[in-house]
């Protein structure tokens, strides 16, 4: 298994990812959502080292798309261990975009702010959606600076100005809290979700009911989303993600092979026993 995974990673070998309709639908939603000046996207990065393998690529493609569209992004988390992701993911995406487009800048405070870890779960989200001005309600960012000091986020206003909500997590409880409480009379945000493979079957329920407008299914979802991004922005670099996706597919092939062997061998033994067993 280590070899199956390690060889593509070591050689940097990649295959094109499979088309995923849910990820494609999410791209359409993200591309078509209109943001007027002052309106923002709110992306919750509720993952830590435990699910970083799947959630980080998802967070990267979501942020890349929003950054390319110059949509101001408020990043925050309900999960304590998300601190590293909140700091690192937007910075790396911004760096990558600046390498690709050297005459443009994506800087902290302008492209995104990090409101950090917010405890309280449902109670916090209830208070957030009922706040008259989200900038004032959130108060300060992780650097200790009042959020009202950043021009793009100075006066977000009520929750109606949050046009898109992104939730990247492998924690179903945390995701449920967003679905249950990030709404108020007459306001239903456009919610997109990056989930881990384990939670795909559960996330599909929300996609089917329309509570989710788009879904990234594990690494495969992020890989296809990055491919769609590449179709629209040809210089977008998704090589690393495609290598990971290929390595994952190689691991799946090994698992399938083991399942086939594991079933064929007993079947062969059974048949041999039945057909020739009595003759020795």
């Amino acid at each position, binding site marked *: 298994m*280590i070899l199956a995974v390690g060889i593509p990673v070591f050689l940097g070998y990649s295959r094109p990812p499979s088309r995923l309709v849910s990820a494609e639908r999410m791209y359409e939603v993200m591309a078509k959502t209109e943001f007027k000046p002052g309106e923002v996207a709110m992306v919750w990065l509720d993952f830590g080292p435990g699910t970083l393998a799947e959630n980080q690529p998802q967070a990267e493609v979501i942020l890349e798309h929003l950054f390319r569209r110059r949509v101001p992004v408020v990043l925050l988390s309900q999960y304590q261990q998300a*601190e590293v992701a909140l700091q690192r993911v937007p910075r790396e995406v911004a760096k990558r975009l600046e390498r690709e487009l050297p005459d443009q800048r994506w800087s902290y405070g302008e492209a995104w702010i990090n409101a950090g*870890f917010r405890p309280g779960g449902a109670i916090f989200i209830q208070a957030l959606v009922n706040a008259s001005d989200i900038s004032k309600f959130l108060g300060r960012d992780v650097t*200790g600076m009042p959020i009202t000091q950043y021009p793009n986020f100075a006066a977000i206003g009520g929750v109606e100005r949050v046009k898109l909500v992104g939730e990247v997590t492998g924690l179903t409880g945390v995701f449920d809290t967003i679905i*249950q409480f990030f709404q108020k009379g007459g306001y239903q945000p456009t919610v997109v979700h990056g989930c881990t493979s*384990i939670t795909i079957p559960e996330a599909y329920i*929300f996609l089917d*009911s*329309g509570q989710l407008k788009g879904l990234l299914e594990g690494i495969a979802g992020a890989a296809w989303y990055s491919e769609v991004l590449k179709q629209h922005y040809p210089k977008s670099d998704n090589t690393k993600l495609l290598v990971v996706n290929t390595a994952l597919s190689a691991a799946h092939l090994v*698992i399938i092979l083991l399942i086939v062997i594991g079933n064929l061998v007993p079947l062969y033994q059974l048949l041999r026993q039945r057909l020739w067993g009595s003759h020795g």
Partner: protein
Amino acid sequence: MDSTTSWGLVTTLIGGVCTLAIFSFLLKENPFYRFFEHLFIGIAAGLGPLLVLRDFLWPKILEPMLGLTITTYPDGTLSEPYQPLYLLYLVPMAFGSLYYFIYSRRHAWLAKIVIGFTLGTSGALAIRGFFGEVVPQITGSFKPLVVFSNGELALFESFNNILFVATLLLVLNYFFFSFGKDNSAQDGSPGTLQSRMAPLGRPLLMICFGAFFGSTVMARLALLVERVQFIITDWVAALSNVVGIG
């Protein structure tokens, strides 16, 4: 992981050692693995309270309450006036602290007030959450069995909806245990329609569990891929950097 800075280099090297220590369990249980396992548990347990204190209690509650967010300018004026209303935070803090009376036999009733309050709040939130989450799913399950698109029958979508509704009804039916008593085993009667349809829900549930299991395997493999990639690309590069090969 950024291994271009010295701090990044150190964390990458430590990360690699931690990963290999945990992977060493694949060979057999060993003290190296056990040490790092305990280290992870300790860090995770310690990190939680520390982050709550650093990211929430201190900057959001204690700092404004103590007036530490106010800057005094050289001319003696203040950046903002002190808000005495912040002192109201003391009321819920004192109320919440009553929880600690759980350790006193005589005053444990005080803790029960807090527990009762918490249960009431949680119950109310659960009801609110139920309506926010489940009602749209119930309405979302009302699907047309025959779908027309641009005046023509949409076969695939219609098939999907029929499959969805049939699965929903059969699985719900499988979980009816409380009425429609079935005496077929005793008296040889054919049984109720409900009881005869019930077994059909089981294979559908098994398909669902299979999907869950498959996706769980996929998630675990994704973790393996990420760690292998980290070891092969980041860690080996950092190690080469340190020993002066790269």
